[in-house]
């Protein structure tokens, strides 16, 4: 898996590594209370433990998140975790044991060196990560989550096992396509200004495209495009019924060649301020306007190709966990399929 890393990410990793306190501990430059070590992984005691006996287990090599850890190191790490939990439970005389992992800054990851927390536990110790129950969620949301996960998890596991085969595993023959949930679809739209503009200015045309453009069709397998239009342009579908009728009479839109390569934008604007809305006028988009969008998209594609690189390069020491998966564009998705 580490061979997949781009030169930019490699460079950022090298810089992270140079400042990483845990890399210094691994190399012996900084002292720590070591409890176990082999050629790939090392376990030390946390000097600010959640409970006495709290162990930090990590790969010796610097990896920021679990997703880019090579599978053979990951397997070794968790076998070591199992043995250490056993020893720790006995040594610290506790009833329970927890393994805690944070992937990415939003999940509470504090160190850029991937690590696994092994924490001795008692049922009444009130650790926040043990309260794992919240509110029931609606059926529609459950359906979407099920559609996305039950499709994608086996695909990801198949891909993993291709590189690290297991004797128990029988490879499946049929390939499949990744399915996106609503939040992911919104992220992808934010990263593709051309697509966002299309939705904002010409929601009806966008809906028609969703029925014909193969890429948009694969993007909206589990999500209703009308709901996305409603998110960006509330009320648009109610007000534009007349346009809908026009559209049906009008020409059948064909997939555009330029939408095969929607530009990835590495600095998405998170404030989804729906921008200018003059496109909401009650007439359908004219041919001229379409040409304009096309041209604009091409321009943006060119821009983002040059600025996108820069954005990534300057990302030094700030790979906030989802550094790899976060920047998925439509291109990446098609590559995955």
């Amino acid at each position, binding site marked *: 898996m580490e061979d997949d890393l781009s030169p930019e990410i490699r460079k950022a990793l090298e810089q992270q590594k140079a400042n990483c306190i845990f890399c210094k501990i691994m190399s012996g430059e900084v002292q720590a209370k070591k409890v176990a*070590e082999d050629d790939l992984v090392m376990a030390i005691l946390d000097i600010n433990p959640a409970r006495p006996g709290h162990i930090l287990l990590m790969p010796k090599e610097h990896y920021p998140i679990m997703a880019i850890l090579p599978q053979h190191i990951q397997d070794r790490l968790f076998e070591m975790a199992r043995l250490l939990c056993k020893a720790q439970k006995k040594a610290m005389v506790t009833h329970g044991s927890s393994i805690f992992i944070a*992937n990415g800054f939003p999940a509470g990851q504090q160190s850029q060196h991937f690590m696994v927390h092994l924490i001795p536990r008692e049922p009444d110790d009130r650790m926040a990560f043990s309260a794992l129950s919240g509110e029931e969620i609606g059926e529609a949301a459950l359906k979407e989550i099920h559609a996305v996960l039950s499709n994608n998890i086996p695909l990801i596991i198949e891909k993993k096992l291709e590189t690290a085969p297991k004797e128990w595993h029988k490879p499946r023959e049929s390939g499949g396509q990744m399915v996106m949930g609503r939040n992911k679809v919104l992220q992808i739209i934010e990263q593709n200004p051309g697509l966002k503009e299309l939705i904002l200015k010409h929601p009806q045309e966008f809906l028609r495209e969703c029925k014909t453009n193969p890429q948009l069709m694969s993007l909206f397998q589990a999500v209703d495009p009308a709901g996305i239009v409603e998110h960006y342009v509330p009320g648009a579908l109610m007000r534009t019924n007349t346009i809908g009728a026009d559209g049906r009479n009008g020409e059948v839109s064909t997939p555009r060649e330029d939408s095969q390569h929607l530009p990835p934008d590495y600095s998405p604007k998170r404030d989804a301020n729906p921008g200018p809305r003059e496109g909401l006028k009650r007439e359908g988009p004219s041919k001229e306007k379409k040409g304009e969008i096309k041209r604009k998209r091409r321009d943006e594609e060119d821009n983002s190709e040059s600025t996108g690189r820069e954005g990534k390069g300057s990302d030094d020491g700030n790979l906030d966990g989802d550094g790899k998966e976060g920047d998925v564009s439509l291109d990446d998705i098609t590559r995955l399929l």
Partner: protein
Amino acid sequence: MIVVYEDERTIAFLPARPIVPGHVRIIPKEAFRSIEDVPEGMAAHYFMVAGSIASALFDGMGAEGTNIIMNDGPVSPEGTLSIDVIPRKQGDGRDFKWEGKKQQDKDLEEARKKITWEFIPPEMREKTEIVQSSAVPIEKPTLSKDDYLIQFYRKIP
């Protein structure tokens, strides 16, 4: 139970009361009460599945981070060993962090000795040459008046 993944050894489902939408719980098919019961190699498999679910949450559900949390029987919401994979977003109002208490060096050293001692299989503890060649310094921990084994038995109801 809404199952999102199943193989020979594990089953992953959406808990009835998720902490956030997208929260997935993995349980081994053979219900283990505690981590001591898990056979060799199995933990690696469970976490391979957990890591793949975390990737699926990144790739398909727009998660910005994930927590993977294993709790064994006595502290698990299922009563048997379980692993929760939780998608996270900036400012989602969830906080799983703990308040760490700084420990004295001598307390840390005592914990280190006890754990390394337990980590060495009993039959190897007496073979001093093996212990000495280990990358980690291993000494027999000195037991206080409150012998930890006695402590352990006292805790059993």
